């Protein structure tokens, strides 16, 4: 037992000295914790593009080379020093890494989190440690519906928006729509997406919609033979899928080989990240979403042109929606800090951030939900069409923010089921 005491003491000493050496940094830097998936299945489609965008935008902010209207070098004059952390390991692990960032590394703010589970677990810790935190990519609407947070912001819309808009789109643009089918991953994202889509569709059509089959294969299953058979047997006018990453690739390749994509309309609510890898296998007419006005749907602006060209030049592929999400989070944070002024306290930055409206590379962001902490943006869908082998989009429909986002103070599912009162769709 004496020896275990000795060992424990050694461990404690080792940890303390390690902690001290890691927390030394220059005082006039703006230390920014950045958390995205650097390993695992979500790193390829989401984590790495987001990290690349962070590198690009932070460099531009530090050099002051972002196009107008964004001005000034650094964040309120301070140069940003990023501290990267891998988001892998689950919510318990991430809460401990968040504490490390705040207390050991002494960051000024944290931008991060792709997984919805992490986005639900982190805000409570952020409140406890009183550290400004910007969630940049996760989709669950529960974050600001279940609680109010002071120190936490999210600069993009929830995943509900994608699926509410998807229901509007197929209702308006698929002639003689009678039935839908779904294939979604068996976890929160898949279940929530499918629920929001079908509930909205029921409201829009007064219940006049048939659901032929709903498939929930395992996350990262990779093999969809049985599900594709089920979708072919229970044929529907539109197939809804919220697949992302390698699952989209696997599903599209297998479904294309069996003719499912040629015979059926498919709507990919998060399909945009797969365009670069899968473009040639996607049939004309596939409906693609980008979780907001991003990528091919981004509005024309000097900022967007700069983002697209610089990103493509530097990393070889055009930026996808996680990259835009990251850019928006960083720009939103910079604008809030600049607005609060040099030497502002965290509380003053929060007041500046609340209800902020700004233009990012992906258009207008209004922090108009969740008491000024949750953004609402417009949502866009379009049909893929090849012109001389180049991927373009037709039938592009833009849904205004107030059409596809539940109003302030409502809970998404209840709002949809109540018939979406107050939605302004014109």
């Amino acid at each position, binding site marked *: 037992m004496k020896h275990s005491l000795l*060992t*424990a003491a050694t*461990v404690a000493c080792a940890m303390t000295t390690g902690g001290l050496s890691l927390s030394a940094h220059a005082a006039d830097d703006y230390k920014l914790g950045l958390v995205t998936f650097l390993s695992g299945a979500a790193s390829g489609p989401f984590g790495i593009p987001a990290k690349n965008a962070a590198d690009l935008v932070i460099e531009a902010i530090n050099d002051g080379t972002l196009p107008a209207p964004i001005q000034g070098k650094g964040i309120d004059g301070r140069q940003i020093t990023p501290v990267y952390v891998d988001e892998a390991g689950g*919510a318990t692990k991430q*809460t401990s890494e968040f*504490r490390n960032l705040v207390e050991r590394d002494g960051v000024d703010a944290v931008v991060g989190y792709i997984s919805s*589970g992490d986005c639900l677990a982190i805000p409570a810790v952020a409140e406890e440690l009183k550290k400004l935190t910007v969630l940049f990519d996760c989709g669950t609407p529960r974050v600001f519906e279940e609680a109010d947070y002071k120190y936490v912001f999210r600069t993009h819309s929830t995943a509900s928006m994608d699926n509410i808009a998807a229901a509007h789109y197929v209702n308006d643009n698929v002639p003689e729509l009678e039935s839908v089918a779904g294939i979604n991953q068996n976890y929160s994202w898949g279940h929530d997406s499918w629920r929001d889509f079908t509930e909205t569709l029921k409201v829009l059509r007064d219940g006049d919609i048939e659901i032929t089959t709903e498939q929930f294969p395992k996350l990262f299953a990779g093999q969809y033979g049985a599900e594709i058979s089920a979708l072919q047997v229970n044929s529907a006018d539109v197939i809804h899928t919220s697949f992302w990453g390698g699952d989209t690739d696997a599903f599209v390749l297998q479904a294309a080989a069996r003719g499912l994509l040629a015979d059926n309309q498919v709507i990919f609510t998060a399909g945009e990240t797969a365009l670069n890898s899968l473009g040639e296998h996607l049939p004309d007419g596939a409906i693609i979403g980008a979780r907001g006005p991003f990528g091919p749907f981004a509005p024309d602006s000097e900022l967007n042109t700069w983002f697209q060209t610089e990103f493509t030049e530097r990393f070889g592929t055009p930026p996808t929606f996680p990259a835009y999400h990251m850019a928006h989070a960083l720009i939103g944070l910079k604008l809030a800090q600049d607005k609060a002024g040099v030497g502002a306290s965290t509380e003053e930055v929060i007041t500046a951030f609340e209800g902020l409206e700004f233009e990012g590379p992906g258009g207008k962001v209004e922090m108009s939900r969740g008491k000024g902490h949750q953004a609402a943006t417009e949502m866009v869908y379009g049909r893929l069409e090849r012109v001389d082998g180049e991927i373009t989009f037709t039938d592009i429909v833009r849904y205004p923010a107030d059409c596809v986002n539940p109003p302030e103070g409502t809970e998404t599912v209840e709002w949809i089921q109540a018939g979406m009162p107050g939605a302004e769709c014109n």
Partner: protein
Amino acid sequence: MKTKSLALLFILGLAILAGGLLLPQWMSYLFTIAMGKGLVVLGLVLLMRAGLVSFGQGLYYCVGAYVAGMLTQFAEVTDILLILLASISVSVVIAAIIGLLLCRYREIFFAMFSMAFSMILYGLLVRMQVLGSTDGFNVANPSLLGWAPGPEGASDLVLAVAVFLVVSLGILAWRYLNSLSGYAGEAVRENEIRLEYLGGSVFKVVYVKYIIAAALAAIGGTVTALVSGHVDPEMAYWTTSGEFVFIALMGGTAHVAAPIIAAVLFEALRTYAFAVAPYTWQMILGFALLAIILFMPSGLWSLVERFQNKKARKTT
């Protein structure tokens, strides 16, 4: 146990507690998580003493965590003692039922069956949208006998409770291992037929160990849930159970202190691996395990044993 060594242990517990409270918060948080995991691994070590490796301790870890989460969130029970009592009862009932089947199997079959049960729980939780599916839900701050320390003091409260649990349960486990039924575990591993001939019941020995391990895992899960403030089905996933086996192998099964120390080391190793190599931290963990298996096949505790043997040789 002599009163002298008991007093020594008591002082040790107080020292750990004081150290934990004095550490910066991120460290005391890590330390509390390590205490929680250490308790789970302690249960696993009891089973390993009987030659059984469970790849399904995540089941009880998750049950303990979800009981804590559901009580604080839906029943508004925040008293840490009530929560612990509830999660122990629930896990013991589940273990008593599953154990009837599981304890008839050995080796790989036991490992696979235990894993299967924890994956069933994972599958059920993923389907339950009320409980947040894979996203899980948040756990409210705990209180103790009517005293609610709020968000700032909650982690210190959990730390104190965790240290108390580790020390007291550690002593109990140590006494259990040095009792007749504790030694019967090793007899099961060495020769079951012989144990039966001696008049012992192999099934009873394994069954009791399985239930104790389940209760310890549930306590560990409750501690983790209360300190991290969030639960999700990942806690029942087989990789979580695998992590416990990893820690058990790291520490070795020779002493009850081994899993606790290994858990602290594991958390420290992982958090520094994260900081030093954000892209390749898994590799650092992998190499660490490889090194331990190659150079210390019976875990880190073999270092202590080597030291003790040397001393023993010197004195004789």
